[in-house]
């Protein structure tokens, strides 16, 4: 993440490519379980970019920018990371009781300009921008990007110590706990943009298992003034949430646009 600028830049490159070429494609992390008991629980996670949820059928989601935050806010190592034709995968050993946030996050700048009559693109961090991008380039367009794709798993009792916002990009913090979701019950979450409540943001919610249905079954809710949105789960299963902001409130001087997106995979259990 932020302490790994190269990985972040690489993740950003992939994110930008995917966003540009195929808005319809969905990025996701899909955990093998979200509610665990026992003395030595493990979660294995699939990471992919696909149309249908949650099937690996298009591209793997690269693991650059992967960060697992465990109980108490500590960073946890993942094991057995691998990237195949259609998916990446890795394991997380939940060695401590509590909730884990498993995220792929990246942020940085994208620039587009014309040099010697040719369109050029650049991606990187704010620190290298001035040195690597000719500041007097023609048609220079700079966009600030932030992307976060995450899911959650809990060993034993859920807690919020791994769920604090980083203050960067678009993020979701719990009102309801993300590993305490049940069919027919309303859950509430808050979206934050750069650490502040993100009002009026549309959140698309898509149930998994689409291969065996005719209709997508998705719906959209909008955050209120306090950034909070609510969802009532019609049936148990895995759900995919996506929200994004595209405006001209970039914090980096020289960036005209800001794009921030957020994706979460949530498991809803039967009663």
């Amino acid at each position, binding site marked *: 993440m932020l302490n790994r600028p190269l990985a972040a830049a690489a993740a950003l490159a992939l994110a930008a490519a995917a966003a540009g070429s195929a808005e319809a494609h969905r990025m996701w992390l899909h955990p093998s379980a979200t*509610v*665990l*008991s*026992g*003395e*030595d*629980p493990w979660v294995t996670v699939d990471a992919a970019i696909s149309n249908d949820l949650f099937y690996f059928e298009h591209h793997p989601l690269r693991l650059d920018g992967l960060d697992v935050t465990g109980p108490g806010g500590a960073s946890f190592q993942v094991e057995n990371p691998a990237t195949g034709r259609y998916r990446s995968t890795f394991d997380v050993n939940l060695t401590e009781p509590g909730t884990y946030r498993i995220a792929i996050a990246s942020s940085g700048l994208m620039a587009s300009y014309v040099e010697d009559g040719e369109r050029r693109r650049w991606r990187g961090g704010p620190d290298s921008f001035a040195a690597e991008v000719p500041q007097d380039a023609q048609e220079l367009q700079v966009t600030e990007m932030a992307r976060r794709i995450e899911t959650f798993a*809990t060993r*034993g*009792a*859920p807690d919020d110590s791994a769920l604090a916002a980083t203050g960067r990009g678009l993020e979701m913090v719990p009102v309801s706990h993300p590993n*305490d979701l*049940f069919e027919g019950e309303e859950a509430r979450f808050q979206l934050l943009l750069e650490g502040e409540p993100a009002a009026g943001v549309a959140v698309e919610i898509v149930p998994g298992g689409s291969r065996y249905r005719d209709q997508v079954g998705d719906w959209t809710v909008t955050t209120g003034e306090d950034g909070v949105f609510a969802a009532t789960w019609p049936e148990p299963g895995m759900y995919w949430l996506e929200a994004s902001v595209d405006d001209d409130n970039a914090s980096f001087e020289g960036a005209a646009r800001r794009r921030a997106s957020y994706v979460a995979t949530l498991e809803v*259990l*039967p*009663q």
Partner: protein
Amino acid sequence: MRLLASAALTGAFAAPAFAGQMTVNVEIPRLNVAEYHRPYVAIWVENADQTSAGTLAVWYDVAMARAEGTTWLKDMRQWWRREGRALDMPVDGISGATRPPGRHDAAFAADHPVLAALPPGEYSLAVEAAREVGGRELIRIPFTWPPAGPGTFQEAGEHELGAVSMTIEP
């Protein structure tokens, strides 16, 4: 919540010495399946809003090496949500071994810590069973506490539980 071990045990086995008791009878059905494992069973008291008023018994694989039996406690997902996930199993007075097919009594004296702490009101006895490579079933039996008189209340499971009855003697 963690029960006081000795109090719970004493209550269960010295029932005749006390004024009243609750006896829960759980039938574990005999199933004709290729791979059979005894179900995990949790028995607890639910408040009217389905929060837990306390766990009475959990039958699971208590004796497995490295406490591996706790891995599947979450499969009793309603109990796990309502109380199990906050317990550090095994808990004396609550934990017990899995039971074979047949009818099993579990008796709880009126001064059992869970029952003794119940304010007068409406409750449900919840019995949840989950079986490895099998299904899961939850049965609720409503009751009023303290009881106005003796009574037996019965519900029947369809898959993982047979008849479940609760007899209250005030």
